[in-house]
């Protein structure tokens, strides 16, 4: 029997698969095939090893910080009742709204020699700046602190969900067998939630590995910084390609690890009874100590930096920034990028519904784009451009940048739409088809209205992600197309922090929208 030709409806997703995947594979291919130019030994000794070791050390410290912030907070919030618990349960997600580079600017100012913390120390003790030791943010631990503080909510969200979903009966059985609160955490709660926590940690570390702005500002030579510098400063495209390969290897491994941990490898719950949280009221003073610790995390990771940015923004220098061209470029790129990535995500979501092969292929390719840091994709785009011999300017640059946005963020758009789709009854399509509704009619009458809530969330998330994106925009934007993120970074690296605050605050403000949406969705899920 002759094999059926692929349906015409498979062509758009296949085209988008190529579109999303191409920059990643170009960057990777360039990394594997890098030939002429700097010798391999030079790249290995002077670039690859130092950049890689710095990146891995940063990830290690950031991971410890994330676990330290997220896991105890998630455990206490899911299991115990204490003053402010409801507030902290969603407020601890807020740091996600702050890009790492904005957190770095704020804490650099807070911790600087002339900043409020050191000034207070000197005022209180009468010492001079040379007489005491103070932690240096411009270091690997400093970068790890910044990234850990902004990205720990990834771990917090998964840990909280895992702890909340644990059967209360299991925990009460443990208590009836004499387990004290710490035993409950170490022997029952943590081991059961560990796979989910490690999954969240791997995702957060993948995001940390993709950072460019914070590391560049703090002068830490991570792989992300190395890629951009090798291309723009050293003129070593082969080095950039090799570094990109290493970074994708690290980020990809973390993504695969995250999926493995979340993909049923973990232990299974044997009890589902009393899932609704019945929290134990903490005795005093433990309740207030817990409140204080949660407040401290929120202060360090959100309130202190945001307050400092607001303070700086109110100083006169900040008002001198001409925001109009920045907003125009940011909005134009944001809207166009969101539109393009949204269409790609919608096509992927609908294709995944209709074919198991397309579901697998679109997920794989979207994940590849998601795991590839912006700097790597930017590099892929530059390699492609070099092949065509075109200059990086005008419409070409904007087209290239939009392409990279699609490649990087399609996965972020697919996720909420897929989640909406997964909640629908599986036989809905069959029911519609049995009633004679198929093709475009089904798309407009059924798919689109049902996808609406997820599509709205997807659009919002995409817009904010593009708004925050730094390395690829920095590498590919044409002249006169500085976005808020690019300008904030430029001001900050020029040590004009006051001017960087207003664009930074606008980015945080926009970032709050999807974070609040996420928080609302999580609370709704917990309630149901």
């Amino acid at each position, binding site marked *: 029997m002759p094999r059926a030709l692929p349906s015409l409806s498979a062509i758009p997703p296949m085209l988008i698969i190529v579109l999303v995947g191409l920059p990643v594979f170009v960057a990777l291919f360039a990394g594997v095939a890098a030939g002429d130019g700097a010798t391999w030994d030079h790249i290995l000794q002077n670039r690859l090893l130092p950049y890689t070791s710095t990146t891995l050390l940063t990830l290690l410290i950031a991971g410890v910080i994330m676990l330290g912030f997220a896991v105890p907070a998630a455990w206490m919030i899911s299991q115990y009742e204490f003053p402010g618990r409801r507030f902290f349960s969603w407020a601890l997600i807020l740091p996600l709204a702050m890009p790492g580079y904005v957190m770095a600017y704020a804490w650099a100012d807070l911790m600087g020699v002339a900043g409020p913390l050191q000034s207070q120390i000197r005022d209180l003790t009468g010492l001079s700046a040379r007489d005491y030791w103070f932690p240096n943010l411009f270091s690997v631990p400093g970068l790890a602190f910044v990234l850990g503080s902004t990205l720990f909510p990834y771990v917090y969200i998964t840990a909280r969900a895992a702890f909340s979903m644990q*059967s209360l*009966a*299991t925990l*009460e*059985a*443990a*208590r*009836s*067998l*004499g*387990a*004290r609160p710490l035993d409950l955490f170490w*022997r*029952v709660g943590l*081991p*059961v939630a560990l796979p989910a926590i490690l999954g969240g940690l791997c995702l957060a570390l993948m995001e940390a590995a993709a950072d460019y702005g914070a590391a560049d500002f703090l002068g830490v030579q991570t792989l992300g910084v190395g890629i951009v510098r090798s291309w723009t400063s050293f003129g070593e495209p082969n080095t950039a390609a090799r570094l990109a390969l290493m970074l994708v290897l690290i980020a990809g491994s973390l993504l695969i690890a995250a999926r493995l941990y979340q993909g049923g490898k973990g*232990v*299974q*719950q*044997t*009890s*589902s*009874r009393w899932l609704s949280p019945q929290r134990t009221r903490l005795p005093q003073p433990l309740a207030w100590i817990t409140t204080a610790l949660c407040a401290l995390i929120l202060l360090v990771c959100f309130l202190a930096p945001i307050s400092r940015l607001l303070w700086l923004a109110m100083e006169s220098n900040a008002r001198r920034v001409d925001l109009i061209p920045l907003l125009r470029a940011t909005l134009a790129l944001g809207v166009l990028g969101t539109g393009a990535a949204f269409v790609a995500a919608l096509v992927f979501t609908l294709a995944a519904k209709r074919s198991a092969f397309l579901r697998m292929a679109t997920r794989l390719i979207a994940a590849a784009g998601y795991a590839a840091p912006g700097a790597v994709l930017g590099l892929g785009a530059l390699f492609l451009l070099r092949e065509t011999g075109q200059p990086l300017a005008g419409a070409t640059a904007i087209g290239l940048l939009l392409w990279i946005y699609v490649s990087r963020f399609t996965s972020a758009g697919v996720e909420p739409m897929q989640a909406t789709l997964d909640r629908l009854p599986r036989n809905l399509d069959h029911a519609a088809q049995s009633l004679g509704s198929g093709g475009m009619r089904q798309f407009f009458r059924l798919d689109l209205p049902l996808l609406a809530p997820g599509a709205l969330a997807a659009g919002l998330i995409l817009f904010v992600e593009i708004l925050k994106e730094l390395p690829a925009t920095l590498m590919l934007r044409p002249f006169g197309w500085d976005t808020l993120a690019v300008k904030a970074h430029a001001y900050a690296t020029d040590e004009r922090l006051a001017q960087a605050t207003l664009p930074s605050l606008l980015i945080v403000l926009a970032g709050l929208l999807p974070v609040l949406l996420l928080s609302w969705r999580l609370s709704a899920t917990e309630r149901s």
Partner: protein
Amino acid sequence: MTSIRPLIADQVSRSFGTVTAVANASLTLTPGEITALIGPSGSGKTTFLRLLAGMERPDSGQILSGERVLASASRHVPIEKRKIGLVFQDFALFPNMTVLQNVMFGLREYAKDERVHMAESWIEQLGLTHRRDAYPHHLSGGEQQRTAIARALAPKPVAILLDEPFSGLDPSMRGRVRDAALNAIRAAKVPALLVTHDASEALLHSDTIAVIAHGVILQSGPPDTLYRAPNSLAVARALGPVHEIERSNLPAEWRAEIKTDAPTLWYRPEAISLGKGPDFTVSGSRLAGPVTELCLKLPDSKDVLYSACQPGTPLKPGEGVQAMINPALFFEFAAEST
């Protein structure tokens, strides 16, 4: 070694907002006996168990283990210090631990070798030796429940509370698991509370039954007493089917046998059996396992009588039969209890 004492609930009450879950409930769980607590959904069974276990604090009343006050207006011994074993309907095994590790969980106060030995002994007693190193998700429902019972009994608890422990099991294995579990509990000679909504389970396997409704313990005592002499319609219904009949509609010779003048009576279906007595017409017949449920039409009345009996041959509607009664299974209840 912990001495085994009764577990006592004395006038215990617990409300949630405006809803009274348990009201002035008193019950004594005797060591070595199984007390069944039965009642419909939402009657307060589980809240009562949670109060005994220490998962809830009573608003008033006392809970004692012998002389030791576990809960009162001024004192609350937390669950982890009560040494009361708990067994849940859905097992609540620790999913990250093997059968052996689950059973060893509550034995921290013993040396490692002793812990292993004690746990293995319970595992053997409950027929789980071949599953010693298996994780919960590899066990059948019956094996999971036996593990949960071994885990609860291993630390020599002062009492064991079972919250509908067998209702989640496949009917084909329920009997075997229940026998193994309850034999082990009886052998441990601890006070045991079996919360269930299955009347036949309570009647067959408990030494004492307490019936609870709307948070109030209506009656407690030996199964036979509660079945044959319920103090209210709710208790009678909780333990099996009862039917209502107007006394005046009964044949005269039956009225003479029943020593009460109450106008309305309730009777269990097995109170009416085939034998020498008044004539009836069969208006319906249904085989219900070991017995046949008959509907017997009363002469000169629209009412029918329900009988659960064992006729020698199958009966068909329209056939004439004679029936007799066991007057001990006819009840009258005060108006307020109906």
